[in-house]
C-alpha cells in the first residue's frame, strides 16, 4: 500500500505569485494514498530536501510527489533526495507548476485549479510506481572527433594528452579546417598559419591520436560508452605509406585546375596537396579531373614517382570501430550570398568578393603572394568597400542570427588594406559594430585611426560602371544617401553550418536547431553536450564563433569526454522496456519498430496448462541498448512489453485522475 507524500514548492514567488500553494497542498491531502502534504518556499534548497527526508521518516512515506519546476531541471535532484531519505529514487514523480503553470497563467484561481489537477495526475501516477534499479554498461575508452578544424584538433589534443585514444576524422585531404586559410588573426595580428599548422603537426605526431584525413563517418549505432561507428576513407590513389611527400608528382602533373583552397583564385595540379603545409603532407589525386582516371591517358605522376606510390586502382575503404564518446566539430561554411543578394550583383561582378577571398589575397602564401589584387584585372584596388552582415541579421532574406566574427575580421581587413595601400580608401558599411572581447574594441578603434571610414547603413545597390563598382547606400547617422565608386567590394558573409552536418547529426542521433546548428543539451548549463548522451560539441558546428571561443569550447568538450572515459562503466537508465513473458505471444512486431535494435525474439521453454513442455518465442529487451522511447509498447496489443516508469497503468491512471 502506497503512503504518498506531496510537497508543493513556492519557488520563492515564481510559483506562489500565481498559484495558491497552501490551497494546493490542502487539496492534495484528500487525494487517494496521500498521507502527508505540505507547501514550502524552496523545495530544491538544502532545508527543502531535508524537509522531504524528515517527512519520509516521520510519516513513513514510500512515494513522493514534488510540485515545483520542470522535471527537466530538478527531477534528478529530488531522486537523489529520495535515495538519501532511504527510498528508491524512482518512487518519485514531479509536477511542473512553474514553467507549465504559474509562468504561463495570470488568473490565480484558475492557475490554482490547474495546479491541483496537475498534482492529482502525479499522485495518481506515483501510486503505480515501482522500485527500479539501474544496471551498468561498459565504456570503451576511445573517443571519436569528427572534423579536424581548430576546434576538432584542440579537442583531440586535449583528450589525447589526458591519455585517451582518439580517432580524428576529416573529410578533406588535409586537416586544419579554415584557420590555416586565414592570413592574420585579430586582435593580435599574429599569423594564422603560424599558430595553426604547428597544431596540425602536433596532432599528426601525437601517439594517442589516429588521424583519418579524407574520410567520412557514414554510420553510427549504439549508445554512450559504446558507439559503433563506420568510417569511409575515400580513394586517394596514392599509397601514403610509400609516399614521401616529395612533391615531384605535383610539379609534373600536366593538368591544372582551380584550387579550392584558394577559392578558385589560384591553380593546382590534379595530384595535389591543398596547401604546402598540409597534414598529412602527402598528395591525393582528384579523380574528377585526373587525365589518367578520366581518359586513361597520361599517368605521368606514376612514372615520376620515385617510390611508386601512385595507385590508380585505389578504392575507398571502410573501417568500423567502437568509441565511448563522440565530439562533433564539423565547423561552418560561408553563406551562398550569390543566390539571394541581387543588389550586390548575384556574384556576376568579379570584384565583389567575400572576406575569405580577401584573406587568401592578403595571405603571403596565397594565390597573389599577399598582394591585394582585383580578380577582374589584377590591378591593385585604391578604393575598397567592406559590407558587413551579408546574410547575417537579415531575417527577411537570409539568416536572422549574428555571425559574431565578422565585425572583427572586417575591421582587420580594413586595417590590412589601408596598411598595405597607404593611399587607399577603405569604406565599411555596417549595421552595428559588435566588439565584445578582450582587446577587440581597442582593435576596432585603431582601425578607425588608420583611416577606415565607417558608414552606418545598408548598401542598397552595387553596379558596374566602367572599371568601377558604384556602391549606393545610406549613411543613417547623417540620414544621407552615399555613393562610393569602389575598385573592389568585400562582403562579410554569414556563417552557416557546414554542408552535410544535418545528415551527420541524424546519423549520430540528435537534432540540429532551426538554423541547422547543432543544438546543445541546455543553452546555459550544458553548452557542449547534445541531448544524446556521449556526444559533445566543439567549435562553430554549435553556432558562429571566432577562434578563441572555438578553442575554449573544444577544451570544454574534451573535459566532458575525459570525464566520461575516466569511468570504466556507466549506470544505465532503468526506465527501459520490459516484457511480461506470460502475456507476450512472440509476434515480434515490437522488434521491427525498435530504433536501437534492442529487442530480440528469444525462445523460452516452459510447461503449458496441461503440463506439457513447450518452447516458444518471447520478446526480450537489451537494457544497454534500450533508450526508453516506448515505441514498442504501442505496437504491443496486449501490452506485454511495457516501459518502466511510463507503464500503461501509470499513464491510464494519470488520464483518469483528471476527471475524478
Amino acid at each position, binding site marked *: 500500500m502506497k503512503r504518498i507524500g506531496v510537497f508543493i514548492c513556492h519557488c520563492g514567488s515564481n510559483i506562489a505569485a500565481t498559484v495558491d500553494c497552501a490551497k494546493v497542498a490542502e487539496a492534495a491531502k484528500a487525494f487517494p494514498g496521500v498521507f502527508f502534504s505540505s507547501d514550502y518556499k524552496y523545495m530544491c534548497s538544502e532545508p527543502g530536501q531535508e524537509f522531504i527526508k524528515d517527512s519520509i521518516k516521520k510519516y513513513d512515506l514510500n512515494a513522493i510527489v514534488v510540485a515545483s519546476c520542470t522535471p527537466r531541471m530538478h527531477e534528478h535532484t529530488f531522486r537523489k533526495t529520495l535515495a538519501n531519505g532511504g527510498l528508491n529514487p524512482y518512487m518519485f514523480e514531479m509536477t511542473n507548476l512553474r514553467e507549465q503553470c504559474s509562468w504561463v497563467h495570470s488568473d490565480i484561481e484558475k492557475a490554482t485549479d490547474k495546479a491541483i489537477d496537475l498534482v492529482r495526475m502525479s499522485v495518481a501516477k506515483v501510486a503505480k510506481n515501482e522500485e527500479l534499479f539501474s544496471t551498468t554498461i561498459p565504456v570503451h575508452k576511445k573517443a571519436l572527433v569528427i572534423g579536424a578544424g581548430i576546434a576538432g584538433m584542440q579537442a583531440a589534443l586535449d583528450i589525447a594528452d589526458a591519455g585517451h585514444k582518439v580517432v580524428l576524422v576529416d573529410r578533406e585531404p588535409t586537416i586544419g579546417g579554415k584557420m590555416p586559410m586565414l592570413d592574420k588573426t585579430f586582435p593580435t595580428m599574429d599569423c594564422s598559419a603560424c599558430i595553426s599548422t604547428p597544431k596540425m603537426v602536433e596532432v599528426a605526431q601525437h601517439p594517442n591520436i589516429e588521424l583519418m584525413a579524407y574520410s567520412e563517418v557514414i554510420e553510427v549505432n549504439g549508445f554512450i560508452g559504446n558507439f559503433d561507428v563506420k568510417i569511409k576513407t575515400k580513394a586517394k590513389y596514392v599509397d601514403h605509406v610509400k609516399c614521401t611527400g616529395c612533391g615531384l608528382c605535383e610539379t609534373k602533373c600536366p593538368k591544372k585546375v582551380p584550387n579550392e583552397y584558394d577559392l578558385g583564385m589560384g591553380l593546382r595540379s590534379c595530384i595535389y596537396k591543398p596547401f604546402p603545409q598540409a597534414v598529412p603532407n602527402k598528395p591525393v589525386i582528384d579523380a574528377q579531373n585526373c587525365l589518367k582516371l578520366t581518359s586513361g591517358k597520361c599517368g605521368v605522376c606514376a612514372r615520376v614517382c620515385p617510390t611508386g606510390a601512385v595507385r590508380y586502382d585505389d578504392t575507398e575503404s571502410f573501417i568500423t570501430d567502437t568509441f565511448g564518446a563522440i565530439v562533433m566539430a564539423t565547423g561552418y561554411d560561408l553563406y551562398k550570398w550569390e543566390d539571394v543578394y541581387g543588389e550586390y550583383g548575384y556574384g556576376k561582378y568579379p570584384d565583389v568578393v567575400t572576406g575569405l577571398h580577401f584573406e587568401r589575397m592578403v595571405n603571403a602564401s596565397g594565390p597573389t603572394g599577399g598582394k591585394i589584387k582585383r580578380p577582374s584585372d589584377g590591378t591593385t584596388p585604391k578604393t575598397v568597400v567592406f559590407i558587413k552582415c551579408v546574410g547575417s541579421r537579415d531575417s527577411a532574406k537570409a539568416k536572422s542570427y549574428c555571425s559574431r566574427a565578422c565585425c572583427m575580421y572586417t575591421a582587420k581587413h580594413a586595417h590590412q588594406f589601408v596598411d598595405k595601400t597607404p593611399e587607399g580608401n577603405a569604406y565599411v558599411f555596417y549595421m552595428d559594430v559588435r566588439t565584445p572581447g578582450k582587446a577587440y574594441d581597442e582593435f576596432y578603434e585603431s582601425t578607425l585611426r588608420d583611416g577606415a571610414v565607417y558608414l552606418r547603413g545598408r548598401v542598397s545597390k552595387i553596379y558596374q560602371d566602367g572599371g568601377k563598382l558604384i556602391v549606393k547606400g545610406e549613411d543613417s547617422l547623417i540620414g544621407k544617401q552615399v555613393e562610393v565608386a569602389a575598385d573592389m567590394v568585400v562582403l562579410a558573409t554569414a556563417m552557416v553550418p557546414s554542408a552535410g552536418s544535418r545528415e551527420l547529426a541524424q546519423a549520430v542521433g540528435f537534432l540540429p536547431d532551426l538554423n541547422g546548428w547543432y543544438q546543445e543539451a541546455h543553452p546555459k548549463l550544458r553548452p557542449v553536450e547534445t*541531448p544524446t548522451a556521449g556526444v559533445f560539441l566543439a567549435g562553430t558546428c554549435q553556432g558562429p564563433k571566432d577562434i578563441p571561443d572555438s578553442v575554449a569550447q573544444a577544451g570544454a568538450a574534451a573535459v566532458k569526454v575525459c570525464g566520461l572515459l575516466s569511468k570504466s562503466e556507466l549506470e544505465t537508465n532503468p526506465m527501459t522496456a520490459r516484457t511480461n513473458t506470460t502475456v507476450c505471444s512472440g509476434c515480434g512486431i515490437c522488434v521491427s519498430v525498435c530504433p536501437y535494435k534492442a529487442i530480440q525474439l528469444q525462445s523460452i521453454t516452459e510447461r503449458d496448462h496441461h503440463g506439457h513442455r513447450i518452447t516458444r518465442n518471447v520478446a526480450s529487451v537489451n537494457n544497454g541498448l534500450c533508450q526508453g522511447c516506448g515505441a514498442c509498447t504501442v505496437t504491443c496489443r496486449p501490452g506485454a512489453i511495457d516501459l518502466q516508469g511510463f507503464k500503461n497503468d501509470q499513464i491510464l491512471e494519470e*488520464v483518469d485522475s*483528471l476527471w475524478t
Partner: protein
Amino acid sequence: MDVIEEQKWEPKILAFCCNWCSYSGADLAGLNRMKYPENIRILRVPCSARVNPQYILRAFQKGADGVLVAGCHPGDCHYSTGNYYTRRRFLIMKRLLEYSGIDPRRFQARWVSGAEAEKFRTTVTKLCEDIKAIGPNRKLRGLK
C-alpha cells in the same frame, strides 16, 4: 449539463507532450512568460511514440473535451524514428475517431520542437478556442 453549468463550463484539454521537444517547448514558453489558456493539462511521455491511441479513447471516455498529441518534428525525434510511427498511428486514429462521430476538432496531433515555444502557445490557444466554440464533449463519455 444544465444551462448554468453550461455557462461556467471550462473545457479540460489533455496534451501528451514528448519529453525532448514538445514538453521542453512548453517549458520554453514558460521561460518566456508566454500566456495561454489554463485549460491545458500536459502529460509528459518520453516520446510521442509512447502515446498509445487507446489513451486518447480513454481520455474522451473519461470526459476530455479535447486531446493533443505533440512530438518532435519528423527527422528530429530524440529517438530518431519514434515520431514517424506516431505519424502513421495517428493519421489512422484521427480518421477512426472522426468516423465514429467525434468532432475532428477535438483531437489534434502537432509537431512542436523544443525551440517552438510560440508554436506551442498558438497551438494550444487555438485548440482551446476551437473547443470552447464547439462546447463540452458528450460523446464517448462513459458512466463515471
